[in-house]
């Protein structure tokens, strides 16, 4: 019953509230319950009609780790030359981060297009759809991270507990970077489907341009300083390097690299927000 005592809600005019798209953030906060519903939906759908169910979350990074360990064993080379940690936890941190990036990119890119029957029938902040995909990837990431404990125990690597807490803000950094990228990718894909087709190649390349299956120290031996800086401008590379440093005590990425990566992250996030708002204006017409 519309109660007369209720305060009269203000007249709300549709349209962008600011050019940078910051208004979207407050709207997302207001509709966080829907974000949770979308997240839950994606999560539930993913593990329906799957026999081992949620175990896949653990199996995927574990198998990735084993494949690359096997590969390097066969090749007879060492992918890392760290003296403090054995190869298994190094590659596992890389795989976990990479799967966070790859699966959030993959699922989020298609999120708007796959749900166009919903997007063209009802309004909600459209950014919720890619963000729900990201939340799923983060969920996998968090569960998968628990694998580090047994892997470290088995390989006899000790976790550096004094800096381990830093892993949380570093992981958050990586997640925020992913959020900026998927704002770009999902809205681009709604307008130009090419993005969806190009993505697998980009991801394949990205896996080798980022220190997923090797560590930065190994790379430093190959590159001169200015190239290392360029390499570390990639926030994925820097975040993986930082995570390994905080947990396993491997070498720290260069300060210049960290600063550049931070600037790149901010640029991508702000431009992603502005672009998404711009693209959103024509989404229902174009999708």
């Amino acid at each position, binding site marked *: *019953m*519309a109660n*007369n005592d209720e305060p*009269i*809600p*203000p*007249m*709300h*005019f*549709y*349209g962008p509230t600011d050019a940078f798209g910051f208004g979207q953030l407050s709207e997302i906060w207001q509709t966080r*319950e*829907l974000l*949770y*519903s*979308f997240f*839950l*939906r994606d999560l*539930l*759908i993913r593990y*329906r*009609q799957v026999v081992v169910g949620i175990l896949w979350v653990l199996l995927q990074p574990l198998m990735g780790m084993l494949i690359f360990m096997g590969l390097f064993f066969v090749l007879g080379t060492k992918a890392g030359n760290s003296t403090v940690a054995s190869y298994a936890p190094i590659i596992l941190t890389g795989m976990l981060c990479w799967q966070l990036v790859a699966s959030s990119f993959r699922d989020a890119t298609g999120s708007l297009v796959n*749900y166009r*029957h*919903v*997007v*063209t*029938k*009802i*309004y*909600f902040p459209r950014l919720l759809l890619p963000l729900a995909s990201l939340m799923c990837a983060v969920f996998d990431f968090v569960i998968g991270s628990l694998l580090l404990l047994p892997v470290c125990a088995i390989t006899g690597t000790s976790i550096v507990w004094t800096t381990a807490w830093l892993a949380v803000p570093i992981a958050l950094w990586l997640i925020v970077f992913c959020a900026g990228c998927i704002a770009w990718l999902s809205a681009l894909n709604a*307008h*130009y*489907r*090419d*993005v969806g087709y190009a993505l697998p190649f980009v991801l394949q390349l990205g896996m080798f341009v980022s220190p997923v299956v090797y560590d930065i120290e190994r790379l430093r031996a190959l590159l001169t300083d200015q190239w290392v800086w360029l390499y570390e401008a990639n926030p994925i590379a820097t975040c993986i390097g930082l995570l390994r440093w905080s947990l396993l005590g491997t070498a720290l990425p260069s300060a210049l690299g960290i600063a550049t990566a931070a600037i790149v992250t901010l640029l991508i996030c702000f431009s992603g927000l502005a672009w998404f708002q711009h693209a959103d*204006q*024509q989404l*229902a*017409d*174009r999708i």
Partner: protein
Amino acid sequence: MSIESIQLDKVSKRFRLGAANEYGRLTEAIASGVQNLFRTPSKPVPKRPQHAFAERIEDGWFWALRDIELSIQSGDIVGIVGRNGAGKSTLLKILARIVTPTQGRVGVRGRVGSLLEVGTGFHPELTGRENVFLNGAILGMPRSEIRKRFEEIVAFAEIESFLETPVKRYSSGMAVRLAFAVAAHLEPDVLIIDEVLSVGDQAFQRKCLGKASQLGAQGRTVLVVSHNLAAVANLCRRAVLLRDGRLIADDVPERIIEQYLSEMRSGDGQRHWDDDDSAPCSNELRLRSVSVTGNGTDTPASEVDIDQEIHVVVEYRVLVPETPVSVQIHVKDETGSFVFWSANAPSMNLEPDPWFGKPHPLGKYRSECCIPANFLNDTRYFVSVFLGPEVGVLAIRQDSALSFVVHDTGAMRQEFTGSWLGPVIRPRLNWRTRKL
């Protein structure tokens, strides 16, 4: 208490003509960007001169809506009336915030709920319970509210024992009931309903309309698009008429309906589709024309005498050899009440149609339905035409293809001179009285 609840200031919306994703490829977008950079004049878009929408086309853009000014008070129930393509759905989508207007601005007070479709976001893999929460959240219900009303929703949908079953195993009726149950428990400040809701059965239609009037009684604002004029008249306190993307009238429903019908009245008892592109068609069939003849002649007429047979003639072309074809007509009266429907199926006909159910070779066909004399009342009727491979399967539908008026010639008025107003039909029947 009259607070403005919806406000539209000079709202216009245009769409790009041609493929919806003309800029759907990145390369094209870049090419066009480069083109604009050098100010190369763009290729003129070929215009179709006979197109009914010609005046709304401008340099490859189509104006779906133009300069809509509308202000609605809270508690109003407003019907939006207009022909197909008049811009009703676009207006609803703008109000529901799905589509952004090209010009002008839209203001709404409070929470908006839009029901342009039943069960938006239903996922077949999820169970009934999970879908209630998901669909409710998409419609804008807080989780706590869904939880509070969950029992009610499930009881309303009558699916208690299937709660933990994935919706993909539901019958379509169950899925629709569940979806509607969720929608019926939505309590937004402004509710926007499309007529697609009323395609269900009669009971379902009544439920939808009942819900709308209940919300109105609670002081909420309701906007309804419907072809069902009787529903608009009963439900709404106000109606607006759209024509060619413009709002041309805003009044009490009775007057709007009158005006709408007088617009529909134009016509000479026939409708042709010369242009192959604009004709209603499916992969196998294309409608060529629909006409009504009466008065004992073969000339199409929009006005026929009550004491003559009325023939509804449908011409179509078969595009794929050996296609089976069934023709169906629906006849409704001015208020949208369904008078009857008929197909050329032998058991529904006095004499079997020789072509029914037979594979049709390529070519043009003409099906004729004869409505007996002294059967319809002296009022206006609207004919919809449906073609499909079998009865009940609709490949082509042409709603309100044309209308005709039955004239009272006095043939049934030898003894009675009063008004026949009211009944939908006026059949001449057999009577016999015996002394007991």
